[in-house]
């Protein structure tokens, strides 16, 4: 029976090539857009090298203080993180580091635009940057304020050409560092890992940062496992409940939290001060955007499918006249449509591989490698199948309600 349906389906698809082309065109390109968007989101939010341990790492990047006359939302300062984040009982490791700041270097009379981040020693244990040369600096280096730096392979080539860099020096922001390690380039989408030059925190020019609640610092906390996240969060909440305000008249409420990368994105998009579940809100926004986007393709597919059915009115009339049930007819038509969408999905999949490869090549986001993994493929196929069912059910229902007498005559009513 199934093979029979398949045969009919293939025949029908071959008969009206223009319609088949329109359907496949719509389905595959819709899927390309969705898959590319999904791959970019996946690239940004999923734990991956060098943040591959981020399935058990939470970060704090945003801190806000609020009062009756408004508030400040900013990145936290060292003092805040040192006092409220460092040493949480359930934490395995904690690292405090600055956000990457864009900086200009002058090297051999050339201007080199780059990024500098200052970190502590624990940073190198939480992130898994693979060293091509040398190694990371240690917490001891940081405590001694040693002028040592780790650079990316890309920087090495820009500064020194095709020679090993360890032991060479570089001048940045009026300071001279000795290179101790070289790592592969990091994508700008890795919020905690991205930089091109890393140096110890204590090499900062002034020690003012130690007294600041707001600044340009961030912290990442590694738990023993993902299961410890709730414990870690409640420990932090407890500390925040005992937050000491310098001037309770201006500010009397704090808002900060240990976030996964997705929760962090939600925090900055929905608002640090928002009183809603931010991650759920962002998920809904993304879902809504995707739904809005597929509205037109779906409507298009439905109207094409309706036209196809009218064309086959006499075939349906014959089947009905010989006693085929409505359910059998609906099943047949939906199956045909799912088959069509899966073919379209496969084309779309190949096209999105090409598109993602192109996006990686033109470096739309420097050093980001977009690829389709099994998870995205599964999502894509799921979307395609849903697409097929939704756009097939209504026309199939219309078809099954056709009056056999009219249908036999080829009429539409």
């Amino acid at each position, binding site marked *: 029976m199934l093979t029979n349906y398949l045969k009919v389906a293939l025949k029908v698809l071959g008969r009206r090539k*223009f*319609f088949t*082309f*329109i359907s496949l*065109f*719509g389905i595959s*390109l*819709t899927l390309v*857009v969705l898959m590319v968007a999904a791959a970019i989101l996946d690239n940004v939010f999923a734990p991956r090298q060098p943040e591959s341990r981020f399935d058990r790492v939470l970060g704090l990047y945003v801190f806000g203080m609020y009062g009756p*006359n408004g508030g*400040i939302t*900013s990145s936290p*300062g060292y003092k805040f993180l040192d006092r409220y984040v460092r040493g949480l009982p359930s934490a395995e490791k904690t690292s405090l580091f600055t956000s990457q*700041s*864009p*900086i*200009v270097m*002058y090297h051999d*009379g050339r*201007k080199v635009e780059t990024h500098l981040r200052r970190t502590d020693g624990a940073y190198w244990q939480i992130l898994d940057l693979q060293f091509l040369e040398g190694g990371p600096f240690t917490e001891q280096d940081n405590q001694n304020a040693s002028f040592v730096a780790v650079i990316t392979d890309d920087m090495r080539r820009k500064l020194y050409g095709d020679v090993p860099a360890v032991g060479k020096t570089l001048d940045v*922001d*009026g300071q001279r560092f000795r290179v101790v390690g070289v790592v592969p380039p990091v994508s700008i989408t890795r919020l905690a890992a991205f930089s091109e030059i890393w140096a110890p925190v204590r090499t*900062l*020019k*002034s020690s*003012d*940062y130690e007294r*600041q609640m*707001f*600044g*340009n610092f961030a912290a990442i906390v590694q738990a023993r496992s993902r299961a410890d996240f709730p414990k870690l969060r409640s420990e932090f909440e407890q500390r925040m409940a005992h937050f000491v305000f310098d001037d309770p008249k201006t500010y009397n409420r704090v808002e900060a939290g240990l976030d996964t990368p997705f929760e962090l994105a939600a925090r900055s998009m929905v608002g640090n001060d928002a009183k809603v579940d931010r991650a759920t809100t962002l998920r809904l926004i993304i879902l809504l955007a995707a739904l809005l*986007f597929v*509205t*037109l*393709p779906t*409507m*298009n*597919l*439905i*109207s*094409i499918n*309706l*036209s*196809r059915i*009218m*064309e086959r009115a006499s075939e349906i009339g014959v089947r009905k006249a010989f006693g085929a049930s409505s359910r059998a007819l609906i099943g047949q038509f939906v199956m045909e449509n799912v088959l069509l969408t899966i073919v379209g999905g496969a084309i779309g999949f190949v096209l999105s591989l090409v598109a993602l490869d192109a996006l990686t090549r033109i470096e739309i986001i420097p050093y980001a490698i977009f690829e389709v993994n099994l998870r995205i493929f599964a999502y894509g196929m799921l979307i395609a199948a849903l697409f097929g069912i939704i756009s097939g059910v209504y026309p199939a229902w*219309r078809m099954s309600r056709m009056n056999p007498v009219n249908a036999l*005559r*080829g009429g*539409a009513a």
Partner: protein
Amino acid sequence: MIKHLLKLVWNRKRANALIVGEIFVSFLVIFAVLTGAITLIGGWRAPIGFDYRNVWDVRMDFDNAQEQTSPEMAATVMRMIAEVRAMPEVESAAISTTPPYSFSTSEGTRTINGREVSVLFDDVTDDFAEVMKLKVVRGRWFNATDDAAQQQPLVLDTNAARDLFGEADPVGQKWELDENQFGVVVGVVSSYRKSGEVSMPANMMFRRSAPNGRYGRLGNHILVRLRPGTPAVFEEKLAARLHSVAPNVSFRVRHMELMRDSMVRTRLAPIIIGGIVGVFLISMVALGLTGVLWQNVTTRTRELGLRRAMGASGGAVHRQILGEVALLATVALLVGVIVVAQLPILGAFSIVTPSSFTAGILGALATIYALTVLCGLYPSWLASRLQPADALRYE
């Protein structure tokens, strides 16, 4: 004729509802993309109120969230700016908090007569007007005589002057900056668009930043205007000099031309992505529409054949089919225009100008009509070629 077409369309309302829906959504998509693009193009040609050429931005890395700049920090910054000014390549230099093309903004909202008004702020020193070549149209810019002023001197741009004080002369007006803390407007400069060509005109208010940090925090950008023709290698010299004057300040030098480039790219990206997605959606709808109309003509062979047999010319059938398509489009567009017309009530004019809004609607209308008629051409041509005898025999 139209009444007859309406009847025909109504008789096939279920099949047509989908087409109308599709055209409606396509209209919204085209409208959104067109309005965005027209706003951008319109803004591109309008004056921006300042001159970014030959200006470099020295962005210092000190904590800006503090309410008050420490006296030591203020002294260091003053030393840096004095050093910069002394260099022969430099024409002038000033301090700013949120300079043009920087992605940082400082914004406040206030309710005036029940209307919410938002204002962009920048805290600048007296030389800012000279560095950015602002044009004073009323009153005057800040100068040293303001040192003695009791209340913080303010300069508005023409947008802010109109929005905050209407037709009244803004010079001499007071403005509450903080609770019980007033500033006084001393002058008005021509419309100033902080993010340049890609931004909408907004209310801009400059607050005078006294060198001693009397009014709170000092900006962390030193803007430097260079003499025309200064070579790029001067940058290294400038950086070295600043490092020697202020060894404990981290900073970086950027050319404002490049800041402008990255601002333009950032604002252009969503329009380009929207455009690509829009073209894809519309081409899909166009193909679908052609398919559906074609199918329509085939199933209506007998009806059309009858018309031909009764003496209607091929051209009349041609016009009938095109008329039906145009009618469907009109229904969809009517709904679309009614929906879109609600947007200004929701405050759309804060992100697009009324003229680009209208142009967006008209452009989308024209595009949709052109597209639907184009899609109808081939099917209606097929219909007009039907031979009455064949058509009547058709099963």
